[in-house]
């Protein structure tokens, strides 16, 4: 801000900032602590869990984790499900979003209202019947079963529609005069333009998929088909908190690593996405 501030207000600003930083450090403390524990030998942790610096230091917990085979397997499952779900959501949502934004078809309003109504249906209202349906089709314990239900959620269509509507109409008209078919316009003009929106939607979908809990919990009953989120839950109980504490912490860090990296790289898209989903 350029406006001149009195000394009193300036100190108020600084004090506020200092308090904010302090809160931020406290906020992060549990994470630092868990990372520190994951890098300490189990024997040391049995004596005391206190301390934020991994001394003595060891990578043994992570080495054990990789030998265990289950955790890497869960990680691969999570990756397949999250990537697959993200791609499907992007394809399906951008196609339908474009239709709602720019194409004319009969009963458009009615279909749109039907879709928007879907935003009100929570996962909890449909997970039981979905479980029954998938069971009767015999497709539980597959990656497809884990990713499909969330592809049906209309929020992505809504976001893409909002984005496409903001693209100047003249751009499409110019392309139309340039002999582009509807699909060419969509593929060569609209999609390249919507990379920021697609990135945002993709990120949110990926994070959701990665962290999904209730559905994989009921759909994947075979330990080989667990996602990391469900897998971790399964070892939290029985993986003796006492002797294997370091390993448990290591698996938590390991499972969070991809998502945290993604967050750090694409932060600004997440912020943009929040602004977009707020509808303004």
């Amino acid at each position: 801000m350029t406006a001149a501030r009195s000394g009193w207000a300036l100190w108020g600003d600084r004090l506020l900032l200092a308090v904010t930083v302090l809160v931020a450090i406290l906020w992060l403390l549990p994470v630092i602590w868990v990372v520190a524990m994951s890098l300490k030998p189990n024997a040391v942790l049995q004596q005391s869990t206190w301390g934020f610096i991994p001394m003595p230091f060891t990578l043994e917990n992570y080495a054990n984790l990789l030998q265990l085979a289950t955790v890497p397997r869960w990680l691969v499952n999570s990756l397949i499900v999250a990537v697959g779900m993200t791609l499907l959501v992007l394809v399906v949502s951008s196609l339908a979003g474009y239709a709602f934004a720019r194409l004319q078809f009969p009963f458009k309003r009615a279909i749109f209202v039907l879709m928007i109504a879907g935003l009100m249906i929570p996962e909890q209202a449909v997970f039981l019947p979905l479980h029954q349906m998938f069971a009767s089709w015999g497709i539980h314990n597959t990656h497809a079963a884990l990713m499909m239900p969330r592809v049906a959620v209309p929020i992505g269509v809504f976001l893409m529609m909002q984005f496409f509507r903001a693209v100047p109409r003249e751009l499409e008209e110019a392309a139309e005069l340039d002999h582009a078919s509807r699909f060419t316009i969509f593929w060569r003009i609209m999609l390249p333009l919507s990379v920021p929106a697609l990135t945002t939607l993709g990120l949110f979908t990926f994070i959701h998929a990665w962290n999904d809990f209730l559905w994989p919990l009921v759909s994947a009953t075979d330990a080989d088909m667990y996602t990391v989120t469900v897998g971790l839950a399964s070892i939290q109980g029985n993986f003796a908190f006492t002797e294997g504490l370091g390993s448990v912490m290591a698996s938590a860090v390991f499972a969070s690593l991809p998502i945290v990296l993604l967050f750090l790289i694409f932060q600004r898209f997440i912020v943009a996405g929040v602004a977009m989903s707020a509808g303004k």
Partner: protein
Amino acid sequence: MADVALRGVSKSYGNVDVIHDVSLDVEQGEFVVFVGPSGCGKSTLLRMIAGLEEVTQGDVLIGGARVNDTAARDRGVAMVFQNYALYPHMSVRENMAFGLRNIGTPRTEIDSRIAKAAEILQLDSYLDRKPRAMSGGQRQRVAIGRAIVREPDVFLFDEPLSNLDAALRVQMRTEIARIHHRLGATMIYVTHDQTEAMTMADRIVVLRAGVIEQVGAPLDLYERPANLFVAGFLGSPKMNFLPGRITAAQGPEVQVEVAGGVRLPARVRPGSAAAGDTVTLGLRPEMLQVHPDGPLRGHVDVVEQLGHVQLVYATLPDRTAIVAELRDRRPPAVGTDIPLAPGPGLRHVFDAQGLAITLPEEVPA
């Protein structure tokens, strides 16, 4: 190249008529400008020719063939949009090539057409830039280039210069005129700016509220406006309109009483007016002069010094505002009264309906 014809074309959205029964012929190679105030339907009309708006009634013909049901892309037209509508993610070269690739034009052909267009528009050194990295004037050139490479039968321009600043607008104006001269293509150009219309057009089409008010060569419209609207729309500053009354009529010769008792002679079409008729006398600002015997007493309100001319805004005794374009380095002072006289030039007379009844005459050279 092709001619364009409109036959009783109408457009309505629901009950709202935006274009009403418009007929017009645009000849091959002609540069026609649609001009009118905003909301007059000029852009809608252009978009109907392009195929971007459906025609409610009537026919659009391009090259003699009815194209009402032909998709925009198959009409052989290219359009330059007000906001340029360049594909932001493509370079200048890709922008121009896009349309040609879509119809499977061979690579070498595309390259040579782009090279030619780039040369015409002096875009050679920008071909690999993205639109984002270009100025408004350059972007507009790319938009024109994109139309040129298509080698369309008809070029359509939708207010292409209104997003540019004044100086650039003048420059691009001459540039588009030059391109028209060089390509000799049929061009239809929409603008709300009468200066653009006057300077660029072979023929001007003046539109108001979805209806054609008058069609003709720029000077024809300027000298012989068919009605008050056209007379007021073309020319800057606007023509002065003096409400008056005919006091005597003999053949074409009439006396018009204006400004509370001043009688000025004028010529109307014989039989079009009789003594006692209410009329409007139209005097172009440039024909008014300060003259010691000037019958019109103007009280000077504002003086605008433009360098080569001075615009004097004055009020007549009957409170009619009037503007005179003087060529006098020492204009009258604000607050003084000046005697004004209509110099040589046509005195326009409009009847009570606003239609011109002026007797057309050859302008003395």
